């Protein structure tokens, strides 16, 4: 069965106003319908972002995130980024899934995310490099690894490099292995990553 890629919503013509208002409706079904109707509508980002912050029902939150994903511009990314810091793992995971689908839109935000003062944010941000081109992801993650003190953040970056890394990563990984030689897991992880990147016989 041939696939048809989804299309963005119709260009905004002011008809999104009633839907934006309905994001505030008392009834979850109405809020859900409104979120779906605003999918791809560039002018709806502020309303969607605000609604996301107060929406109690899961499926409506999901629909709002999907609507933002379909818009996929810098403003949408900015609306979703705060949820990387959520205490709720499901919310964080959802934010990651949506942002991962927007490699071009997230690219300008990667450097600040990978140097965030919160190690959990740095850790999650490594996942966002997974859908980028190998050279770009390698550049970003190697930059992180060279200055990263937290072993679990390094581990997350190494996991992504195992899939997407280019040979430029190898010297960085070797230095990382030396820094963390006395810790469990990281030397193992790095040896696997280097083997996969260089395609060497195991």
């Amino acid at each position, binding site marked *: 069965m041939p696939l048809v890629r989804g299309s963005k919503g119709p260009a905004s013509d002011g008809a999104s106003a009633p839907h934006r208002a309905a994001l505030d409706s008392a009834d979850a079904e109405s809020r859900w319908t409104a979120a779906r109707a605003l999918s791809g509508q560039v002018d709806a980002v502020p309303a969607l972002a605000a609604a996301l912050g107060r929406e109690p029902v899961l499926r409506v939150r999901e629909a709002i995130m999907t609507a933002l994903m379909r818009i996929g511009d810098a403003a949408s990314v900015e609306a979703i980024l705060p949820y990387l810091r959520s205490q709720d*793992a*499901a919310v*964080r*995971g*959802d934010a*990651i*899934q949506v942002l991962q689908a927007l490699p071009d839109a997230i690219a300008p935000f990667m450097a600040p995310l990978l140097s965030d003062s919160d190690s959990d944010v740095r*850790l999650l941000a490594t996942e966002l490099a997974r859908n980028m081109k190998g050279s770009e992801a390698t550049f970003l993650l190697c930059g992180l690894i060279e200055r990263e003190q937290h*072993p*679990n953040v390094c*581990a*997350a970056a*190494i*996991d992504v490099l*195992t*899939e997407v890394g280019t040979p430029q990563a190898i010297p960085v990984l070797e230095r990382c292995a030396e820094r963390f030689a006395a*810790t*469990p*897991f*990281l030397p*193992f*992880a790095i040896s*696997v*990553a280097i083997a996969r990147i260089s395609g060497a016989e195991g």
Partner: protein
Amino acid sequence: MPDIAMPSRPRVLVVDDSSLVRLYCQSTLEKAGFEVEQAINGIEAMEKVLSEPFDLLIVDVNMPRMDGFTFLRSLRSGAGHAATIPALMISAESDMQDAADARAAGANFYLVKPVAQADLVRHACVLAGARL
């Protein structure tokens, strides 16, 4: 004091979204005599637990789609054999609160990453043998 007898080739399910962590656990535990299956998150883990027998679960806290706490709570609240499988929770957090949360969710033990191979094997053996 009853003997703790380990099943002859205990089956362990490793649940972690990182392929390297799963590989590390697999290679460590296979050398120690376990049969190892993998799952990438809590939903896939639930599907596997409901379809196949396991003697031990090793569950990461921070996974997308369904985190480790949610998975364990969901498992423990269900009926049947699967609800009582011993579970070792592993986490990147070293916060004491997480250990308390893990116990409350139904984990039997809690380890902080990175986990040394010897610790993994020792705790896995104890927990897999603990279910009589």
